[in-house]
C-alpha cells in the first residue's frame, strides 16, 4: 500500500511520449505522478539532437501522421505543437518522380499521372475503413471475459458500434471491408494498379517498422492503422523531440514530476499488489500504482516473472519484436539537388520504394538477417523549409534487421551508411560528394539507446495475432499487467506504436477506472 507519507500515487517508468501522455492524463485527474526516465533526456523514440550547431534533427521517429486528435485535445497540446504538412514524393529511377499531395496525384513535373485516380480509389477506401476502426484505438480492447453479463455487454459496445457502422456503409462497402481487412497490400494494390511508384507507396506505407513484406497477409490492416488519424504526414518544427516536449509540458502542467537519468530497477510488490518502485540508485519510492512503457518482457522482468502465471510467462516470452528499422541522419555540405524535383518538392517526404515488388524483395533478404541490396527509405530534409543554408537529411531505412548475421559493429554500421547513401544516390547522384557527416543508428543502437525491445518501431510487432485483445498477449490486453496496480502504458500495449499518445492515455484511464488508486 502507498503509505501515508508517500508523495506519489503513480510512478511511470519511461518518459517516452506515451509515459508522458499517461502522466498528463493522470495529473489532470489530480493524481500525483512521478515519471522516471533511464536516459538523460525525455522522449524515448521521439527525441531530437543537434547534428550540427543549432541544427536540430529527429534522432529516430521524425514524422507525425498518427498523433491522435483526441489526445491532442484532451492534453491541450495544439498550442504547443508546430507542425507542417508534407507532400509525398515517390522517387523514380527515371527521374519521373510522382508527387502525392492529398487528392492531387501527379508527376513531379506537374503532368497528370495516368494511375492517379486508381491509386486514390484504393487509398481512400482504406482510409474510409481506417476511420471506421479508429474509435477502437481510444478504448481498452474489449474484454472477451465479460461474457453475456451486463458488464460484458458494455464491453462489446465498441464492437457492436463498429458492426453497426459497417452495416450503415451499405452491403457493398461492408463486404469489401470484410474481404480486405485481413489481406495483403501487394495484391490489393496490384489488382488495380500497374506496379510502379504508386503501388510502391501503398506497399511501403503498409510496412514501415514491420517484420512483414507487402505480400504478407495483415499488411492492409497495418496501412489502416497508419491511416487511423487520416495519415497525412506532418513535420514537427525542431524535430520529433519537440512533440515529446509538448507531452512533457502537458505532464508538468498537470503537476507531474519528471526525473531523467533514473532507471527503474524493480517494481516493489507486497501481497500481490504494487507498493512502489526501486530505482537503479537503490532509492525506494512508494506508490499505489506503477505504469511501465518498457516492452512486455522487460516490464514482466521488472515485476519479477514469479508474479505471472506460467501461461502468461510463456506468452510474454513469445511476443515478437524483431526490429527491422534503422535511422540514418546525414549532414550535408551544401544544399541538396535532386534531379526532377523543385526545392519545394525536395522539402517533401521522399520515398525510395519504386515498386511494390522492390519492397517485397527487400524484406525477402532481410528476414534471414541480411542487409537488403536495396532497402526502402523515407527521407526528409527538414532544413529546406526553414530557409537556412545548413542542411541535413533524416532518413528511415527499412528492413535493416536487428538480428543481423554477424552482429552489429562499426563495420556493419558503415555498411548501413553506405547502403543508405547508395540507395538515395540512385535518385540523387549528387549526394555522394555532398556528405559531411553521417550518424547511423542500427536497430541494435536504437535498442541500446531507448530500450525499445529489438529496437522495434511498435515495441511488439503490429500483426493481427498481436492486436486488440491479444496485444501484447492474450488475457493481458487491458493494460493491467498481472499484478494489482501494475500497468503497461507504452507502444507494446493496445493499440500499438507510432507517435500517437493513445496507449499512454488509454492506460491511464483504465487505471483510474479500475479503482486501484482509491
Amino acid at each position, binding site marked *: 500500500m502507498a503509505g501515508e507519507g508517500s508523495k506519489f500515487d503513480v510512478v511511470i517508468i519511461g518518459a517516452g511520449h506515451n509515459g508522458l501522455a499517461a502522466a498528463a492524463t493522470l495529473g489532470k485527474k489530480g493524481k500525483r505522478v512521478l515519471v522516471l526516465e533511464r536516459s538523460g533526456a525525455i522522449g524515448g523514440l521521439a527525441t531530437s539532437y543537434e547534428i550540427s550547431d543549432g541544427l536540430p534533427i529527429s534522432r529516430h521517429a521524425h514524422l507525425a501522421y498518427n498523433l491522435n486528435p483526441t489526445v491532442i485535445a484532451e492534453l491541450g497540446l495544439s498550442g504547443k505543437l508546430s507542425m507542417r504538412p508534407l507532400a509525398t514524393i515517390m522517387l523514380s529511377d527515371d527521374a519521373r518522380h510522382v508527387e502525392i499531395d492529398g487528392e492531387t496525384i501527379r508527376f513531379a513535373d506537374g503532368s497528370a499521372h495516368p494511375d492517379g485516380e486508381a491509386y486514390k480509389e484504393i487509398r481512400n477506401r482504406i482510409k474510409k475503413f481506417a476511420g471506421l476502426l479508429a474509435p477502437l484505438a481510444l478504448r481498452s480492447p474489449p*474484454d*472477451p*471475459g465479460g*461474457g*453475456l453479463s451486463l458488464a460484458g455487454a458494455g464491453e462489446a459496445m465498441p464492437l457492436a458500434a463498429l458492426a453497426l457502422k459497417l*452495416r450503415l456503409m451499405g*452491403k457493398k462497402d*461492408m*463486404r*469489401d471491408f*470484410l*474481404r*480486405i481487412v*485481413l*489481406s*495483403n497490400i501487394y*495484391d490489393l494494390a496490384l*489488382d488495380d494498379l500497374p506496379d510502379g511508384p504508386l503501388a510502391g507507396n501503398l506497399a511501403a506505407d503498409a510496412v514501415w517498422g514491420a517484420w*512483414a513484406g507487402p*505480400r*504478407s*497477409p*495483415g499488411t492492409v490492416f497495418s496501412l489502416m492503422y497508419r491511416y487511423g488519424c487520416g495519415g497525412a504526414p506532418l513535420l514537427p518544427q525542431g524535430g520529433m523531440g519537440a512533440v515529446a516536449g509538448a507531452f512533457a509540458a502537458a505532464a508538468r502542467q498537470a503537476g507531474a514530476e519528471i526525473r531523467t537519468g533514473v532507471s527503474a530497477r524493480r517494481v516493489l510488490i507486497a501481497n500481490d499488489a504494487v507498493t512502489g518502485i526501486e530505482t537503479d540508485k537503490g532509492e525506494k519510492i512508494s506508490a499505489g500504482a506503477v505504469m511501465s512503457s518498457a516492452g512486455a518482457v522487460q516490464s514482466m522482468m521488472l515485476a519479477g516473472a514469479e508474479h505471472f502465471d506460467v501461461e502468461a510467462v*510463456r506468452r510474454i516470452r*513469445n511476443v*515478437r519484436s524483431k526490429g527491422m528499422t534503422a535511422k540514418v541522419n546525414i549532414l550535408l555540405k551544401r544544399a541538396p539537388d535532386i534531379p526532377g524535383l523543385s526545392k519545394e518538392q525536395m522539402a517533401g517526404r521522399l520515398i525510395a520504394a519504386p515498386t511494390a515488388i522492390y519492397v*517485397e524483395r527487400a524484406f*525477402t533478404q532481410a*528476414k*534471414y538477417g541480411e542487409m537488403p541490396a536495396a532497402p526502402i527509405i523515407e527521407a526528409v530534409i527538414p532544413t529546406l523549409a526553414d530557409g537556412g543554408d545548413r542542411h541535413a537529411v533524416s532518413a528511415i531505412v527499412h528492413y535493416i534487421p536487428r538480428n543481423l548475421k554477424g552482429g552489429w559493429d562499426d563495420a556493419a554500421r558503415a555498411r548501413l551508411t553506405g547502403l543508405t547513401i547508395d540507395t538515395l544516390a540512385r535518385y540523387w547522384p549528387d549526394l555522394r560528394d555532398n556528405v559531411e557527416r553521417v550518424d547511423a543508428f542500427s536497430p541494435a543502437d536504437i535498442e541500446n539507446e531507448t530500450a525499445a525491445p529489438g529496437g522495434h518501431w511498435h515495441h511488439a510487432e503490429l*500483426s*493481427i*495475432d*498481436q492486436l486488440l*485483445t*491479444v496485444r501484447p498477449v*492474450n*488475457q493481458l*490486453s487491458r493494460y493491467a499487467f498481472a499484478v494489482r496496480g501494475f500497468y503497461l502504458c507504452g507502444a507494446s500495449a493496445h493499440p500499438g506504436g507510432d507517435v500517437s499518445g493513445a496507449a499512454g492515455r488509454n492506460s491511464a484511464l483504465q487505471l483510474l477506472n479500475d479503482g486501484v488508486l482509491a
Partner: protein
Amino acid sequence: MDKQDSYDAIVVGAGHNGLTAACYLAKAGLKTLIVEKNEQIGGAAVSTEMYKGWIYSNCSYVCSLLRQEIIRDLELPKFGLQVVPYRGRVTFSDKGEYLASYDDAHVKRREVGRISPIDVDAYDRYYQLVMRQCRFIRPFLLRRAPDPTSMKPRDVGELMFLIKRIYDIGPRDVGEMIRFWTMSIGDFLDEHFEHELVKASMAGSGIIGTGLGVYSPGTAYVLLHHYMGDVDGSMGAWGFARGAMGAVTKALGAAFESAGGVIKTGSGLSEFIIENEKVRGVALENGDEYRAPIVASNLDVKRTILKHIGREKLPPEYVRAVERFKIRGSSGKLNLALDKMPSFPLLPENGDYFTGDFSCNTSLETLERAYDDWKEGRWSAKPYFDMLIPSKIDPTLAPPGSHMMSLFIQYAPYDLNVNGVRSADNWNDETRKAFADAVFDRIEVCCPDIRQRVLHAEVRSPADIEREVGLTEGNIFQGELTFDQLLFNRPIPGYAQYSTPIDGLYIVGSSTHPGGGVMAAPGANAAREILRRNGKGDLMPALAEEEI
C-alpha cells in the same frame, strides 16, 4: 429437341464435389446429368495406370478430409471405398538426422524425445491446441457460410451459431483462437518447439498447395485445413484409399448411378446456355446440347465465369471480383514407377513409417527460402516434398516386388520465369526435367539409390495439372485459402452461398466454402442450397449436427 435431352439438373464436371452434389440432387428425385470433359470421372481424385501395371493417383493421393457424415450418408463403403490409415511418417534433415512419427502416442513421444527432450511436453500442448481448433471448425464445414450483410433469418441464425460457438469456448481460448487463426505456422511452431527438425517436420501442412511461406500470417489456418479431417474417427489422421484416390470418385459415381443419375464423359462444356439472365442448359464442345433449369458447375469460379459465359451477360462488378479471385499454382507432382523398394539407409528397417509419408526439410528457413524462389517464378531450389509409397499399403498398385512412389512438391510456379519472362509456356520437357532433377536431389538425401530405381517417371508442373484436370493454374484448392477467400468471402463476397448472378447457375466445386481438398463438403452444401431454393429443402438429409 429430343425429350431425352432435358433434365431437371445438370452438373458440369465429375470431380468429387460435382459427384457429391449430383448424388444429393438425384436422391432428391431430380433427373440429373453429369457432363465431364475427360473420359474418366474423378477430376483431381482419380486412379489411372501410369505405366504397365503401375496404378497411381495423378493429383490427390491421400485421404482424410472426406467428411464422415457424407461417407456414411451416401454409403460409400458399400460402393467400394475403404480408407487405410497411415501408421507413421518421417522427416529427414540434410544433416543426416531423421524424426519419425507414429500412431502410438507413447512411441511418438519417445521419438521426439530422442532428438529433443525439451520438445516432448511442448508437443502435447501443441497437439491439444491444434485439436481444439479442429473441433471448433468441424461443425462449420457442412453448414453454409452466413452472409454477414444479410438480415434474413437463416443468415442471422448462422451468424448467431458462429457467435455462440465462439462464446462457448471461453475467453481464454477465444484469444488463443484469434492468434492461431491469424498467425504464421512458422511463428506458431517457434513458440512451441526448440528443435529445428521438430518444427520443420510439422510445418509442411501449413504450406501445401498454398502461395504463402511458412512465415506468412494465415498459414497456421492452412495447417488446420489439413488437420480437420479424420480417418475412422481419428481426428487429424490421414489415410490411403485402397485402389488409390479414384476409389473415392468411383464410389461416388456408383452411388450417383444407383440413384438414377446419368454420366456422360468425353466432351467438355463449351458454354452455359443463358437466356434472359437465366440458365437453360449447357452446350458441349462436341455440339451436343442439354437443357435443364438448374446447372451446377464443378469448375473453379474463374473457369466457370470467365471461360464459359459471355461477359456481357454478367454484372461487371461481379466479373471484376472473379478476376481478382486468387488461384495460384504453387505445387507440382512427381510420380515414379520403381523396380523395387528403394533403400533408406538412415532408417531402421520395417518401421511403420514406410506406410506413411516422407519429407526432407531441415528447417523452417529451408521452407521459407523455398517460398522465396516461387515468388520470383522459379521452382524451389530445395523443394519441400510429401512422398508416399502407396504400394506399401496397397500392393495391388504395382506388380509384385516393385513399387509406386508419389511425391507432392511445393513450390513450383505456374508462370515459370525463364530469363526474366514469366509464362506457363516455359514449362516444356527441358524445364520439367530440370525441375524433376531438383526433386531427385532432395530425395537422395533420404533415399540415395532413388535414381537407379526409377523405371518410369512422370513430372507434373502446375501448367500440366491445369491442362489435364482443368484446375486453374493447377491450384489444388481451386483458390487460395487466405482470409479474403474463406467463409463468406469464398469465392465472392455476396455469392458465398453457391449461387451466381445467373438465375439457376450454381458453383459447387472447391472454389466455394469450405474450400479444397477431397472433402465433398462444398458439393453437399451446394446441393442443400440448390434444393432449398427449389422448394425441396426437406429432401436433403441433415448432415450438420444442428440445423438452423
